């Protein structure tokens, strides 16, 4: 097994590269654009899933950390007069630096606010998200309310989906590790976890920081795909959008988050035939969904838990932990 893993990784990278090449040469630019936006949404949804779905902490400020990643990386590639940052690799480095800043911001925000619970936590994260946005709105160096134009458009299908793959791999591994089990135990019963000696706040804050890191990655990719960012791209509605992805897909399910990201990003495009009414249809679907399938499309399950034919790929579903913890 151990020798096969790098090989599988290489194969996946090759497959993503090949697929990107095929898509970009065969499909029209609009469809490729929707697909890349879906990829960015996947990263956002998977990262928020760690906090909202796995740790069971309700965060409404994800767009703020996306903004940190986007602004820091875009500032590096547009404002720093060093040619390296305009190259493909340089942009990659800038995205990682931006994401690190976002992770640190997540840690700093999480430290005080994750002591709160439920709706209070939701509101405080919302508040922090808005404050981060308003701070960028007031920094003239990155354009203030006018936004930051002229960002090198270096991220494409390949880079975005490499990150989707990496996020999926890292977060999937994390949840199966002992660290991840502890995070799940907090969702299942915080009081019980605490009495077992779990430093609940510490685990919550770490989960929050990791989640913010990947939100920052999504932000950096977004900035270098659009070529232009302004504070309004990271408003409250963006945070809500990501929460909706996680909830539609199923809280705590990585593949569910991907499904949710696909639905939230691609469905409005498919509904374009309804013209201006499409924006009314979408929330209506959300409401109906909550009424008829309250646990999201996949619930706690991953896609392969529901497809028996996957056989060998089947792993012990995360959701089964529930019995072992509560009993």
């Amino acid at each position, binding site marked *: 097994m151990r020798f096969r893993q790098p090989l599988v990784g290489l194969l996946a990278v090759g497959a993503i590269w090949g697929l990107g090449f095929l898509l970009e040469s065969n499909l029209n630019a609009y469809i490729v654009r929707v697909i890349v936006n879906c990829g960015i949404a996947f990263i956002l949804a998977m990262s928020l899933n760690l906090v909202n779905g796995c740790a069971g902490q*309700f965060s409404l400020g994800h767009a703020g950390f996306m903004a940190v990643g986007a602004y820091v990386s875009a500032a590096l590639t547009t404002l720093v007069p060093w040619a390296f940052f305009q190259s493909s690799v340089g942009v990659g480095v800038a995205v990682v630096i931006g994401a690190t800043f976002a992770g640190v911001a997540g840690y700093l925000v999480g430290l*005080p*606010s994750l*002591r*709160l*619970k*439920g*709706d*209070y936590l*939701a*509101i*405080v994260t*919302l*508040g*922090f998200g*808005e*404050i981060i946005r*308003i*701070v960028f*709105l*007031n920094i003239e160096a990155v354009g203030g*309310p006018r936004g930051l134009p002229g960002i090198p458009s270096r991220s494409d299908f390949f880079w975005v989906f490499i990150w989707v793959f990496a996020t999926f791999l890292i977060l999937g591994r994390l949840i199966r590790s002992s660290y991840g089990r502890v995070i799940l135990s907090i969702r299942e019963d*915080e*009081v*019980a976890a605490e009495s077992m000696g779990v430093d609940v706040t510490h685990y919550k804050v770490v989960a929050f920081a990791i989640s913010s890191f990947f939100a920052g990655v999504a932000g950096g990719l977004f900035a270098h795909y659009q070529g232009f960012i302004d504070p309004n791209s990271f408003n*409250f509605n963006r945070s*809500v959008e990501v*929460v*909706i992805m996680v*909830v539609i897909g199923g*809280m705590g399910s990585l593949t569910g988050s991907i499904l949710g990201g696909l639905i939230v990003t691609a469905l409005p495009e498919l509904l374009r035939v309804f013209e*201006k*009414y499409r*924006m*009314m249809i*979408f*929330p*209506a679907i*959300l*409401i109906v969904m*909550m*009424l008829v399938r*309250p646990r999201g499309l996949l619930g706690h399950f991953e896609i392969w838990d529901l497809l028996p034919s996957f056989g060998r790929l089947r792993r012990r579903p995360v959701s089964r932990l529930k019995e072992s913890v509560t009993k």
Partner: protein
Amino acid sequence: MREFAQIIVNGLAAGSVYSLVALGYTMVYGVLQFINFAHSDIFMLGAFTGIYLAAWLGWLQPPLLLFAVVTLGAMVACTAIALLVERIAYRPLRSAPRLNVLITAIGVSLFLQNAGQVIFGADPRVFPSILATRALFEDGLVVNNIQVTVILVSLLLMAGLHWVVHRTKIGTAMRAVSYDFEIASLMGIPTDRIIIFTFVIGSALAGSASILYGLSYPKVEPLLGVVIGLKAFVAAVFGGIGNIVGAAVGGIIIGLAEALVVYYISSSYRDAISFAILIVILLFKPAGLFGTLRREKV
């Protein structure tokens, strides 16, 4: 000194509108324990009702009568929409996890915003000046009749609410339901009817607030509710969510703080200050200014 008095008056006028909206949030939270995100959009629909009513009944004299009729109309319209929302979206979820209700509320909010954009168009509309603006003091202090009306009407409504909640039978039942939903229903309190009553009062207050807001800031658009709703909600949490006095005081404090920030720092930090205050308060007093924390038990 005169400038300071001016800031205080501006802050009070803005804050009393926040208070009225915050009351709706806090009452629904008190009874049902969820953030009614759609509340702010019901406020927005109230403002549009005001625009259409004022255009339709523009011949009514004197202006004060027109103001009263338009306000009542907006209150009725808001109540009707809120009841519809409660019946269709919230009631079927009475026993669902709270997160689901929250997401549903967000869905309703998005629906109303987008429906507003389809029906009224995305461009801002001018709210008719039902009451002609008239300065009351001439010696530099700019206090006009609108600000005084806003503050007085809000105070009147809040006093009325206080009376209903503390002096009537249905108000007592409301407090009982918010204290303990299940026990209240065991004691024979018709909880569904109390919830409806709560929505009626909360949205009627939002309706009146929307007219008062329209008078002071005559620019109305379908996304109007977003910012006001967030601030009003912050005000409610600030005062201790579920606590009626807290929401009223919280709204006033947020309004004052904003006025001070706009004058002394910069208007672009206006929206950040309410969140900053909120975060500081929650870190030191996690249940808000007047709230009591219920400890979670195993």
